[in-house]
């Protein structure tokens, strides 16, 4: 009797649903998505599973998946179904058991109230050491003072807060479902339900997770709406490095004229690392001369050697400079700090120069010969 009371307490305190309820797995507002996912305890590789997407008020609200509590090689463990819940961004929310079903620890003991609470905390910890454990590790892992004679060594990995005595298998199995490949599957599934308009709105969110999700989702799309292009151009000067990486990786699938505009906008970003990523992206475009004017423009504003080096490396691939371009560069020779002008000087040394242009070079050399 004592144990029934504890189970009921757990149901009330954790799952937020009344005892006896088990979220419907089918219905008009539930979409079933077939996903193929791997798990470190699956011996035969990835399996196809049914991910459920739940809609509320016509909009995607959350996802859930029914799994077995333990993937157990020797089949000596008691296995019960467990439902795992995520939000639209693949973040763990909670787990559910079927009414009357309980999880079990070693030697057939049922979970106590604290064990259910502990399991919830373990599953909520994305940084758990469980991430680094393999299936083999678990078989060799010594936790809670249990001696493991196989390793002959301290295969001690999990702290007591990261496992439940006698239920390490369960913790391991469920944690890897929660934080494994399913997260990206959920994000992909959610992204497919959204229109570009909704993703554009997310770009202004104060929640970084939502913004990253929006950039990731847009990065999958080849046909950007005009408003989306405008939104990205507007965001580019203030993108974080992580956001800029997502956008720059996606650029290859977008039209050239938009890429040029986007690069121009990214090069105004105050973070040097973002500007460098943008230049690396231009670098990968190789011979597309449409970028040449913006590189010349950027050279005038440059304040760091890495950027100057990158720009000159790209410009060098476009072939010999025109005389007017040499003139423009020589103007910069007079303005920038020596690390940049020295790089420029060496670059111009290899160009065809007029007598007056050579004279500028000679002057520079005389003034800075100690550093050249």
């Amino acid at each position: 009797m004592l144990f029934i009371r504890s189970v009921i307490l757990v149901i009330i305190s954790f799952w937020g649903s009344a005892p006896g309820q088990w979220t419907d797995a089918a219905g008009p507002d539930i979409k079933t998505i077939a996903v193929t996912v791997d798990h470190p305890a699956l011996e035969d590789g990835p399996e196809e599973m049914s991910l459920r997407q739940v809609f509320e008020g016509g909009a995607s609200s959350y996802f859930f998946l029914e799994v077995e509590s333990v993937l157990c090689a020797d089949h000596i463990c008691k296995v019960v179904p467990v439902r795992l819940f995520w939000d639209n961004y693949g973040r763990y929310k909670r787990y559910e058991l079927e009414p009357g079903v309980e999880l079990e620890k070693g030697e057939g003991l049922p979970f106590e109230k604290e064990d259910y609470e502990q399991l919830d905390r373990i599953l909520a910890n994305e940084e758990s050491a469980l991430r680094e454990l393999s299936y083999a590790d678990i078989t060799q892992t010594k936790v809670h003072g249990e001696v493991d004679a196989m390793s002959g060594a301290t295969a001690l990995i999990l702290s007591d807060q990261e496992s439940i005595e006698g239920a390490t298998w369960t913790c391991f199995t469920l944690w890897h479902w929660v934080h494994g490949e399913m997260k990206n599957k959920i994000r992909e599934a959610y992204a497919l339900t959204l229109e570009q308009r909704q993703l554009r709105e997310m770009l202004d969110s104060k929640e970084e997770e939502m913004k990253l999700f929006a950039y990731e989702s847009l990065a999958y799309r080849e046909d950007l709406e005009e408003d989306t292009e405008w939104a990205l151009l507007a965001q580019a000067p203030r993108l974080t490095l992580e956001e800029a990486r997502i956008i720059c990786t996606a650029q290859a699938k977008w039209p050239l004229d938009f890429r040029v505009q986007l690069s121009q906008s990214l090069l105004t970003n105050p973070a040097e690392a973002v500007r460098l990523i943008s230049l690396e992206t231009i670098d990968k475009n190789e011979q597309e001369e449409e970028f040449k004017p913006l590189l010349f423009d950027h050279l005038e504003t440059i304040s760091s050697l890495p950027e100057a080096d990158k720009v000159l490396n790209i410009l060098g691939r476009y072939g010999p400079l025109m005389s007017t371009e040499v003139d423009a560069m020589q103007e910069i020779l007079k303005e920038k700090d020596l690390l940049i002008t020295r790089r420029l000087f060496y670059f111009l040394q290899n160009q065809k120069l007029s007598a007056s242009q050579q004279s500028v070079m000679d002057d520079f050399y005389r003034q800075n010969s100690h550093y050249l």
Partner: protein
Amino acid sequence: MKRRKFFKQTAGAGLLSGLLPLSIRVNDDPVNLGKRSNDHWEQMGKGKIGIPKRQKTVQYDVAVIGAGMAGISAAVASARNGAKTVLINDRPVLGGNASSEIRVTVNGVQSLQNKHRVERETGIIEEMLIDNWYFNPQESYPVWDHVVYDYVSQQSNLDIMLNTQAIDAVMHDSGTIKSAICWQLTTETAFTINAKYFIDCSGDGLLAATAGAEYRTGREARSEFDESFAPEVADGWQMGATLMMITKDMEKPMPYYPPSFMIPYQAEKAHDRKINQFKEGYWWVELGSDDDIIADQETNRHKLMGYMHGVWNYIKNSGEFPEADNLVLDWVGSLPGRRESRRFMGDYILTQKDMETYKHFEDAIGYGGWSLDEHNPGGIENLSEPPSYFHDRFNKPYEVPFRSLYSKNIKNLMFAGRNVSVTHIALSSTRIQGTCALMGQAVGTAAALCLSHQLSPRMLAQNNIDLLQEQLLRDDVYIPNRPSRDPKDLARQCQVIFGDSTATGDAKLLLDGISRDEIDQIHHWSSSSKPAQLQLEWLEAQPISEVLIKADTNLQRKIMMHKNPDKNEEQILAVPPELVRELVLEARVAGAWKEIAQLSDNRRRMIKLSFAPVQTSALRIKFKDTWGADQVKIYEVRCYS
């Protein structure tokens, strides 16, 4: 924990050895081992009758006794840093506990309770382990012996003496060691090894003991160092030695007939001695001592051979393990792997408390992190108790001070390995071979520095510890909480360092003096693809003749060889794919880039490029390839004139 009752020795004897440092008489009249008078040798080739005169006196700067992972690291470090060095080993192969004679896994810091489960040792020990995957992917122990021999024997400035035991010390009047008297059994030659510094890494430490270096055996009382895992009263408890075995599958039922010296295994009485694998023997086939473990070694060896066969007999003939029907013994150990005997006293005794509080030492030279894993000396004769008490584990590496690695009373004597200045409880963690190797590299480096600066180890510790720490950091040792600040490193004076692409980290981090990622602290630069390049730019030209690069070998992944292939899971049985394989170094001279060094098939995390001095304001390192990874990851770049 209850004190064991089955040892015959009195508690009083154990108590005495635990409380009072045993002082050994300094031998001022060593036996002249090579003196012969009764031979009647008719040498047919020469047609003469004579007496063999096989006595030799040799002179070195540094003599290292014992060639386990600690001694090898000490000898190589000493030689690399300029000291003429000899490595003396009493076995026919190098490697000590790790050799094919014993086959103990080269474990290191692992199973930490943190994001970094593994915090692998770098420097000399890593170089040997990576070489092993290059030359010996088949994981053959005899081949590993030769990999180690190849690694050590190609080191210039270093001589190897195998089958040679240092059995006595000749002392100067000043109380320092003048010579090690050694017997080389294969040549019947007595060697007098004169050296300025002696490093005893032999484990049992016979040379150090005969020199009169203070040492302890047994367990300290809890009160002496406030160690919670120590016994209330000091005793003689010394962790035992183990005999291992390796089996193979004959793919048909095979009988097993035990030898006459087999001692039956009483499985029904065994506590925590699970038989859940059949490949590599059992570390709990182990015997220690409560009194004089060195005196007991041969008796224990004979019994361990019997117990080992006893366990196998139980597996094969009890009917309990049908899965072992097709298995046979393929290799059996005859030389037990030892865990503990003498602990020589230094200026500092490292304790359980130091380790558990992660005490910062100004003279730290390395680290450890194996759990406090105290084996029961009764071992397989004390089945009612567990074979080991895993007292506690660590969240992160603890520091090891240099003051625990030199003798408090013999001025020119250092030590590394299991015989260093730690308490019994501390030894239950520091004894691991990866940790011992770091100690070895530290004392070898220290010996060379003492030589070049005319210092004693104590003077080095007290007044010049920066010298030692900077050299170790330069040579790719990691010292927690001690970033490098080497003023000679010209890379630190560059105006700009940048990569041609950056996936993670930042090129500037390569100059921050920490050459690995720490928990939640990144110290690397990683390109987004390969090939990739790094550039360093100085305002004024610098005279440069050496560039050091610390590349990635994934220090959070284990790298050691195993007897049991099941333990290879999650390891990569090859040179780490992350490691830079091929590179070119260019210097900018008069505005043009010029190749000054190149490297292919690199196997070192610490890449050292030496070249004719060049005066340059920019260097460019072109990383052309790795051993498999798609990105290039680097932790440090240094430049020296």
